[in-house]
């Protein structure tokens, strides 16, 4: 059976509803194993009550996103930092 995940690209729309920067090009660092990856390279499980993005190295949960009726919950406990590329400022 194929595993039911997609790339972190799948986060672009749902997270884009919250933040004005595109985070799929940001770099996360997994709290569990320390691996750094583009958010776009995370493994996203979306056939679930929310979106769950896991580390491609160790499968630990890096972020969760739940969209309620009038609020969203973004759980970032699995990433120790997010490096977000920005124009020079």
């Amino acid at each position, binding site marked *: 059976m*194929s595993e039911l995940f997609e790339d972190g690209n799948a986060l672009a729309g749902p997270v*884009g509803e919250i933040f004005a920067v595109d985070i799929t090009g940001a770099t996360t660092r997994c709290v569990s194993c320390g691996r750094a990856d583009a958010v776009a390279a995370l493994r996203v499980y979306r056939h679930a009550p929310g979106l769950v993005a896991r580390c491609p190295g160790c499968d630990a949960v890096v972020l969760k996103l739940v969209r309620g009726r009038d609020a969203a919950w973004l759980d970032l406990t699995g990433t120790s930092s997010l490096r977000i590329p920005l124009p020079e400022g």
Partner: protein
Amino acid sequence: MVQGRLAWRVGRLAEVRDETPTARTLVLDVPGWPGHLAGQHVDLRLTAEDGYRTTRTYSLAAPAAGDRVAITVQRVPGGEVSPYLTEVFAVGDPVELRGPVGGWFVWRPTSPDPVLLIAGGAGIVPLMAMIRARRAAGSRAPVKLLYSVRTPADVYYAGELRRPEPGLDVTVVYTRKAPADWPGEPHRIGIADVNTAGWPAEFAPQCFVCGPTGFVETIADVLVALGHDPRRVKTERFGPSGS
């Protein structure tokens, strides 16, 4: 890339083109569309009379032409959304969409680097957007496309891909049934195909791979085995969308 927060817009179906017996390109007219990069997506939201609602993500198939954007939808038998979009959704009908989204699996026409595009089935869509963006921008970046399909009837954009285009090499590999004049037997893309049809790793091409999850895993492993820098291999997997 700073994009501003996403909101739902209303687009209307302006034009349809059947690509294969089971895939249809939908051209939507979206007033105020902000433009997009090749490789980006849109989310479509469909709402039934009783309020039931569902969302799907589609790759954009071409650069924006003013307020017009194009997606190509593969009909999945028994699916919830794709049979509607390919059979029922009619010119003039509205649909909600938001985007463009995704800033990672994108190609910019300003990049002069060689490009290797590898598509499995419907994974051709965002890669076709890159080929079309290159043409529209007059880019001279050399591009090789390796495209895996089941049979000749499954090739999207067949006429356009057959037309010779300077700096673009197209190789199609058939997995089930090949045309009579095709050398060799139908097979899945392997290391020999990528080695022959792609760029040597020393050329440091930007590689974009799009297709079903298993296909993308295999090709990404092949590219790394051939010496390509994993940081220059960008992938996009289709999930089991059941759409």
